C-alpha cells in the first residue's frame, strides 16, 4: 500500500465578486511510496502550492476541497475529525513553507516554537522538549544551538531560519515531508547547503518527500519521480531524469527548452554591433560605494563605517555589446546599476560615458544624457505606473525627450509594441491587466522609446516564469540589434547571462573576482567563487565539498 494515495483531487477558490468558483487543482491523482521523493513542478499559478496544502487537508481562506480523496497510510484524511487531522499534522506529515521569515512567529523566540510542536505530539515536558529541540538544531547543522534557541526569527540569517523550520517539521520524524519552494527565498550557495541537508535527513530518516518547485533542474537533482502541472492539472509525469532529458508533451518540451542552462553548448553570443574604433561607450574605473551611515549622537563618538557595498570595481563596455554582471544578492550588482543610472552617487571612482565623465547623480546630468542611458527594472508591475494606460506610459518619454506628442507619438508607441510582439490593442489597457511577461515587454519598449545608447537590465527576468524568460530575452536581443544599443546585463542567473553576454564580470561582496569572455569565465573559471556558483547552478554532487573547501579559504563567509 502506498503511503499517500491521491485520487482525483479538486480544490476550488471562491471568486470574491461573484458566486462562481475557479478550479485551482483540477482532478489530480498520484501516489507516493514510503521513502520516495516526488517532485511537483509548475510555473506560478499552476496550483502546486494549493495542492501541497490540500494533501494535509488544509486550504487557504477562500479555498475549498470540492472533490476527490487523499488516502494517507490507508486512511481518507478528509473523513477525519479536526482533532484527528491535527494529530497527523506536524507528527506524521509535515510541511516546510516557502518563506521562513514570515512563517515563524515574529514575537516568539525560535526555540520555543519548535518546543511547541514536540509538546503537542510527544507529551514531553518543557525541559524534555527543550533538550530535544537543541538536538534537532544540532542535527540540522545550526551552529551554536543554545544561542539560536534564544533568538527571535529576525535575528537569524535566511539559511538559519529555514534550518529552524526544517528542524520543526522533522521534530516528530514524520513519514511524509512536503517542501513548498523551500529555497526560493535563499541565495544560491545557501540553497545548495539546505538541499544537501534535506537529502541527508531524508536518507537518515527514510522520510518520503514531496518537493514543490518551479525549477526543473532542482527536481532533477532532488527527486526520483516528477509531476509537471499546468492550470491545476498534471500534464506530464515520470522519472525525473527522463522527463528532464526527453519530455513527452509539448508543454514539457517547452519548459525544458526554456531553461537557461550553464552547461548548454552555445557559442558566446555574437556581438553584431561591435564598433571598429576602440573607445568604449562606458568605462567604469575603481568604482566604490558605501551606504551613508545614519546620523546619531553615538555615531559621533564611536564612528563605525558601513562596509563598502561596491569595492574598487572596474570594467569597460564597448558600443553595441552586452556585458554580464553576475553575483548573488548583496554582491553589489544592483548598486552599480543605480550609480551608473544616477540614482545614487559613487563614494569614489570614475565613470566615463562616450568619452566624457558622468555627473554624480541624475541631477548633474543633462536631459540628453538621461535619454541616452536607460534602465529596465526587476519587477515589471511596479516599474509601470498602475494608474497610467500603456499609451501614456509609452508616449511620455517621447514627449519629454523629443517633444513628440499626439499621433506621431502614438504611432511610435505602436511600432515599439510591435517590436515587442505585442498588439496595439494594449494601448488602452492598464498595466495590471497585462501578464507579467507583457508588462516586462512594455517596460523594455518604454526604455527603447528614448532611443538609448546604453541600456541597463537589472535582473529583468528573475520575476518571470521560465517559459516567459526566454521569449523576453529574445525580444530584448532583437531590439538591441535593431537599435545598436549597448547593454549592461545584471543577473544572479548564470544560465541567462551565458545566453546574452559577450563578456562577464563576476561580483562577490562588492568586488569583481573574475572577468573576461563569457565562454572563458564559464568553461574555465579561474576563481574558486566562480566555480562555486557554477557548481550550484549545475547542481553538482561535489558542490558540498566545494563549499567546505571554500569556507576554509574564506570565500564563503559564515552566515551572520
Amino acid at each position, binding site marked *: 500500500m502506498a503511503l499517500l494515495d491521491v485520487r482525483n483531487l479538486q480544490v476550488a477558490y471562491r471568486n470574491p465578486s461573484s458566486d462562481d468558483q475557479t478550479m485551482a487543482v483540477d482532478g489530480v491523482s498520484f501516489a507516493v511510496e514510503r521513502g520516495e521523493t516526488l517532485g511537483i513542478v509548475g510555473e506560478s499559478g499552476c496550483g502546486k502550492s494549493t495542492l501541497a496544502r490540500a494533501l494535509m487537508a488544509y486550504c487557504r481562506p477562500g479555498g475549498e476541497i470540492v472533490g476527490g480523496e487523499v488516502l494517507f497510510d490507508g486512511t481518507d484524511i478528509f473523513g477525519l475529525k479536526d482533532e484527528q487531522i491535527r494529530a497527523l499534522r506536524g507528527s506524521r506529515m509535515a510541511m516546510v513553507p516557502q518563506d521562513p521569515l514570515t512563517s515563524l512567529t515574529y514575537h516568539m523566540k525560535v526555540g520555543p516554537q519548535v518546543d511547541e510542536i514536540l509538546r503537542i505530539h510527544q507529551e514531553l515536558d518543557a525541559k524534555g522538549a527543550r533538550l530535544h529541540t537543541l538536538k534537532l538544531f544540532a542535527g540540522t547543522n545550526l551552529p551554536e544551538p543554545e544561542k539560536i534557541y534564544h533568538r527571535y526569527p529576525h535575528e537569524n540569517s535566511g539559511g538559519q531560519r529555514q534550518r529552524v523550520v526544517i528542524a520543526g517539521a522533522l521534530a516528530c520524524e514524520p513519514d511524509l515531508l512536503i517542501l513548498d519552494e523551500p529555497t526560493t527565498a535563499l541565495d544560491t550557495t545557501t540553497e545548495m547547503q539546505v538541499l544537501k541537508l534535506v537529502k541527508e535527513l531524508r536518507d537518515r530518516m527514510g522520510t518520503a518527500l514531496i518537493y514543490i518547485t518551479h525549477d526543473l533542474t532542482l527536481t532533477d537533482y532532488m527527486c526520483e519521480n516528477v509531476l509537471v502541472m499546468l492550470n491545476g492539472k498534471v500534464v506530464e509525469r515520470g522519472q525525473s531524469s527522463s522527463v528532464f532529458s526527453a519530455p513527452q508533451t509539448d508543454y514539457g518540451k517547452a519548459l525544458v527548452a526554456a531553461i537557461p542552462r550553464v552547461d548548454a553548448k552555445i557559442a558566446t553570443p555574437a556581438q553584431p554591433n561591435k564598433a571598429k574604433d576602440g573607445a568604449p561607450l562606458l568605462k567604469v574605473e575603481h568604482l566604490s560605494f558605501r551606504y551613508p551611515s545614519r546620523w546619531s549622537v553615538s555615531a559621533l563618538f564611536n564612528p563605525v563605517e558601513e562596509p563598502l557595498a561596491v569595492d574598487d570595481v572596474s570594467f569597460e563596455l564597448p558600443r553595441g555589446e552586452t556585458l554580464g554582471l553576475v553575483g548573488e544578492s548583496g554582491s553589489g550588482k544592483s548598486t552599480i546599476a543605480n550609480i551608473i543610472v*544616477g*540614482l545614487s552617487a559613487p563614494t569614489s571612482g570614475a565613470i566615463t560615458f562616450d568619452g566624457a565623465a558622468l555627473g554624480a547623480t541624475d541631477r548633474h546630468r543633462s536631459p540628453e544624457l538621461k535619454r541616452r542611458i536607460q*534602465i529596465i527594472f*526587476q*519587477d515589471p508591475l511596479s516599474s*509601470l505606473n498602475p494608474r497610467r494606460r500603456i499609451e501614456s506610459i509609452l508616449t*511620455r518619454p517621447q514627449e*519629454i525627450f523629443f517633444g513628440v506628442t499626439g499621433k506621431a507619438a502614438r504611432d511610435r508607441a505602436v511600432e515599439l509594441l510591435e517590436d515587442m510582439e505585442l498588439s496595439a490593442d494594449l494601448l488602452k489597457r492598464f498595466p495590471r491587466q497585462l501578464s507579467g511577461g507583457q508588462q516586462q515587454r512594455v517596460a523594455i519598449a518604454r526604455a527603447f522609446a528614448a532611443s538609448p545608447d546604453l541600456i541597463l537590465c537589472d535582473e529583468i527576468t528573475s520575476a518571470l516564469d521560465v517559459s516567459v524568460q526566454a521569449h523576453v530575452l529574445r525580444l530584448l536581443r532583437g531590439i538591441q540589434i535593431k537599435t545598436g544599443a549597448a547593454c549592461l546585463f545584471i543577473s544572479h542567473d548564470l544560465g541567462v547571462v551565458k545566453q546574452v553576454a559577450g563578456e562577464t564580470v563576476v561580483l562577490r561582496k562588492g568586488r569583481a573576482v573574475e572577468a573576461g569572455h563569457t565562454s572563458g569565465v564559464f568553461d574555465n573559471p579561474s576563481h574558486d567563487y566562480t566555480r562555486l556558483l557554477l557548481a550550484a547552478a549545475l547542481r553538482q554532487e561535489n558542490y558540498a565539498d566545494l563549499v567546505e573547501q571554500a569556507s576554509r579559504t574564506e570565500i564563503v563567509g559564515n552566515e551572520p
Partner: protein
Amino acid sequence: MLVNDKPLLSIVTHSPATTIGVTLVTLHLLNAIFAPLLIPYGSTQLAGMPLIAPGHPDFLLGTDVIGRDFLSRLMMGGRTSITVAMIGVMGAVIIGTFFAVSAAHFGGYYDDVVMRIVDTKLSIPGILFVALFVVGFGRSVTVLTIVVGLSYFPGAVRTIRAQALTQVPLAYVKAARLRGESALSVIIRELTPNVIEVVVVEFAIRTSSAILIVSALSFLGLGISPPTADWGLMVSEGVNQIYEAPWLILLPAVFISTLVVGLNFASDGIANALGLDAARGLGGH
C-alpha cells in the same frame, strides 16, 4: 461606469447595508437640496402657538417652544452642518493630500516638520481644539468651517502619507525621476493618482465624522448658533421640554443618526468593495 474595473452599480449593491446606506444618504441629500422649496413655513418664522402637538392640520409635526413649525425646522436642520462638514473636510483632504504626498516623496527634514505639526494637532483632542478657536475667534459658520478643516487636516495627512510611502520606493517613481520629470510632476502626475482611493475613502469617513462633531458642537453651544435650524441645536433646545414633548428631541435625533449611519454604511461598503480597509482609518475623532 467603472471604478477600479468594477461596475459602479455592483459596488453600490455590494451588501444590503451598503444599499441601505446609499439610499439613506441619497434621501438626506435630496431633502437637504430641495427643502427650501418644499417647507410649509420659514425655518425661523414664528408661525403659530408654541408647543402644538404633532397631527395638527396646519402643523404636521407641531411647533416648538416658541411656535416655529417643527417639520420645516427638521427638514432644514441638516443643511448647515452638512455644508460645513463637507467644505471643511474637502479642504482638509485636498490640501492634506498635497502635503502628505510631498512629505512622502521628499522625506528628510521636510517630512519631519510636516509630521511634527501633524503630531502636535493630533495631541489636542477634538472638541478641545475647537474650543480654543471658538474662544479666540468667536462663533461663526466661517470659523467653524475652517476649524473643521484644521481638525481633519492632520489625520488626512497621516493616512494618505502612509499610502504614499508604499508607492515612493516603487520602480515607476524612479523611472519618472530618471526621465527628468520635475518633483511637482512626480507628486501630481505619478504619485497622487495612486493614492486617490485612500483620499476618497478618507473624505467619506471624515465627512460623517465631521457631521457628528459639528452637531455635537452645536449641541454644546460651540457650533452653529440660534436661531438657525440645526439638529444638534434642536436637541439641546428640546431638553427643557423633555417631559412634555420628547419628540422635539427624538425626531432631530433620528434625522442626524440616520444620516451618519447611512454615510458610514455607504463608505464602509464602498471601501470593502474596492478592497480598502475602512476600519484602519477610524482611529478616533
